[in-house]
């Protein structure tokens, strides 16, 4: 059986100008032996962050994300970076946003309860277009829930958690290696799009160990924010040109700009003018919609001749992949579509999938968060073709669970 697994990231049609400041962190390369090692998901996040040039971490202990903070508390000082344990998650998101405005590449890591506390700060980073990354290792909720058990309950929160309309870039790995890769991508996208990028991990993935071989630093592509080249009095903190990817000055560099969480004009000063408010909101939205091809990444696995598609993310997608293999063994034509970028949602790929297959199976560890998006795109198709598998009890959905449902549907 031909295994066709490809991760597609279509080249942008109207390519946004690539930021020129690309750093290679050679000094780090020499510091780590590159060989196949046993590595934990959270550990891969920490090393991904370091390799992407993260030099500021503020966080608060919470299961199951704590290993990220523990590793960075040891590694960041060695590289001259900052690790600080704050008094709570609210302070953590604020500190990384402040540090980013001072020029740092910053990151925090948390889990459900802390992620909820961070929502206001995430909104602030988004409206002020300040690069930063929040890693949320999801556990069972609501509230304290089951701290050491797995769930995928923050798929919608990661999109809509902060009040008001705002852009969302959310990435979702399914392996330890991808934890590393998508952490780097999250930091790169945060820098490029000047936004708070969220990395969603499943508890099992955060704690899982796998054999991984990390790439040489020479092959790690690191993107840093574009710095302004204009004299200070020409600088606009939110310049509308350049495909909404505008330069960003840091505090202490002579630009003396103003940043506020109030609705603001291009210079960053508060405004109540309808036209300026609309411009700001447009800019936040278009930053995503104009660059959707650069942002969306999906994996299409055995989809070529598939009559049934499974749509799943994270650890559930791994169960789905096993289910695809089992079903194919029995001659059932099944494929898997897996979003690596969960927000912006891969609408086009899902529309194509809905055209190509007869049945879509959506397994997820929540009460129906991913399936909402599929339903939004289904339109005139009857709902019976959508098979839901939902579970929130701390247990994973297994390949057999998916296979059984899938056979029932045929």
């Amino acid at each position, binding site marked *: 059986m031909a295994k066709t697994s490809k991760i597609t990231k279509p080249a942008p049609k109207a390519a946004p100008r690539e930021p020129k400041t690309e750093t290679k962190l050679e000094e*780090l390369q020499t*510091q*780590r032996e590159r060989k196949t090692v046993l590595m934990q998901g959270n550990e891969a996040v920490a090393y991904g962050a*370091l390799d992407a040039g993260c*030099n*500021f971490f*503020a966080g608060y202990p919470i299961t199951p994300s704590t290993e990220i903070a523990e590793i960075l508390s*040891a*590694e960041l*000082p*060695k*590289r*001259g970076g*900052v690790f*600080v344990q*704050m*008094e*709570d998650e*609210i*302070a*953590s998101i*604020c*500190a*990384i*946003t*402040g*540090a*980013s*405005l*001072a*020029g*740092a590449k*910053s990151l925090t890591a948390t889990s459900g309860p802390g992620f909820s506390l961070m929502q*206001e*700060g995430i909104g*602030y980073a988004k409206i002020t277009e300040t690069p930063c990354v929040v890693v949320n290792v999801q556990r069972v909720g609501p509230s304290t829930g089951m701290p050491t058990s797995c769930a995928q309950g923050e798929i919608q929160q990661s999109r809509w958690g902060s009040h008001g309309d705002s852009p969302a870039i959310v990435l979702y790995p399914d392996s330890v290696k991808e934890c590393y890769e998508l952490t780097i991508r999250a930091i790169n996208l945060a820098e490029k799009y000047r936004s708070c990028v969220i990395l969603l991990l499943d508890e099992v993935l955060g704690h899982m160990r796998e054999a991984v071989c990390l790439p040489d630093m020479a092959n790690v592509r690191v993107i840093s924010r574009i710095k302004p080249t204009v004299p200070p009095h020409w600088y606009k903190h939110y310049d509308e040109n350049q495909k909404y990817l505008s330069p960003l000055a840091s*505090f*202490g*560099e*002579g*630009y*003396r*700009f*103003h*940043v*506020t*969480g*109030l609705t603001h004009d291009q210079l960053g*000063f*508060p405004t109540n003018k309808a036209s300026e408010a609309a411009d700001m909101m447009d800019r936040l939205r278009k930053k995503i919609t104009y660059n959707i091809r650069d942002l969306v990444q999906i994996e299409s696995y055995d989809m070529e001749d598939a009559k049934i598609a499974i749509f799943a993310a994270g650890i559930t997608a791994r169960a789905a992949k096993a289910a695809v293999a089992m079903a194919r063994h029995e001659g059932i034509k099944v494929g898997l579509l897996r979003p690596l970028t969960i927000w912006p949602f891969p609408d086009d790929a899902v529309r194509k999938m809905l055209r190509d297959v007869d049945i879509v199976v959506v397994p997820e560890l929540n009460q129906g968060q991913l399936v909402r998006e599929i339903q939004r795109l289904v339109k005139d198709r009857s709902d019976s073709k959508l098979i839901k598998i939902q579970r929130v009890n701390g247990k994973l959905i297994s390949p057999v669970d998916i296979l059984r449902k899938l056979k029932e549907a045929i």
Partner: protein
Amino acid sequence: MANIPQKVIHDFLRHDKKFPHVWCAGCSNGIILGSIIRALAGMDIKRDDIVMVSGIGCSSRMPVYVDFNTLHTTHGRAIAYATGIKLHKPHLKVIVITGDGDCTAIGGNHLIHAARRNIDLTVILVNNNIYGMTGGQCSPTTPHEAFATTAPYGNIEPDFNVCNLALGAGASYVARTTAYHTPETQNMVKEAIEHPGFALIEIVAACPVIYGRLNKKGGAPDMMKEMRDNSVPLSAVEKLPPEKVEGKIIRGVLRKEIHPEFTAQYADLVKRAQALGGGK
């Protein structure tokens, strides 16, 4: 005290579309901002190296008017944002402008932990005893039995002594003054910025339009007079009989000590970590 001409203040302000300011007539915020600017004008600090961070509230609108690096954050969180800035670029002078509600209610946790860490921030807390921007609700420093829109029968809660809170949390510089005492404010701001560690200045301020009206305090001049007559310098407290100090605002530097500073401690930690060996 250096005599700073009016033009200098003008020079420190952002003019294009930032004025008129949002403050009511008679508000102390403008007076306090004037004192801060005079203090900074008399110091040898590049404007590029000054970051003014604020939270939400009337006094927190200050940064928008001044020509520094300025950051107007979310409610209560100014100190947390400032901590991030200071840790990443320790050479910057980071000044936090905050109010009584911003700093002691919603942001109380950040205040006590920044004081405990002794991070080199200058926190200027403008205490007008009320939530002015939202129209006069009771704050943690609204006096017992005073009126607020959410305390229509009089406030039954005891009020916070902000300076004692900071002292208890380990702040290494703590001072109190009032908006009436402008030269004193100016000197304290200078001293607090020069102080290598966490500094908190509580500036008792008048809110004639909201707090004043709710509590029949008269107009702005009456409230300024009250600050003058109802406050005692720390140096005089010991000489006065207790009944003359009772209920008075005690002005002065309540603590000025050198403790290990957080960003300096962190720089030492980096040296120790690097001495132990490179990254994994």
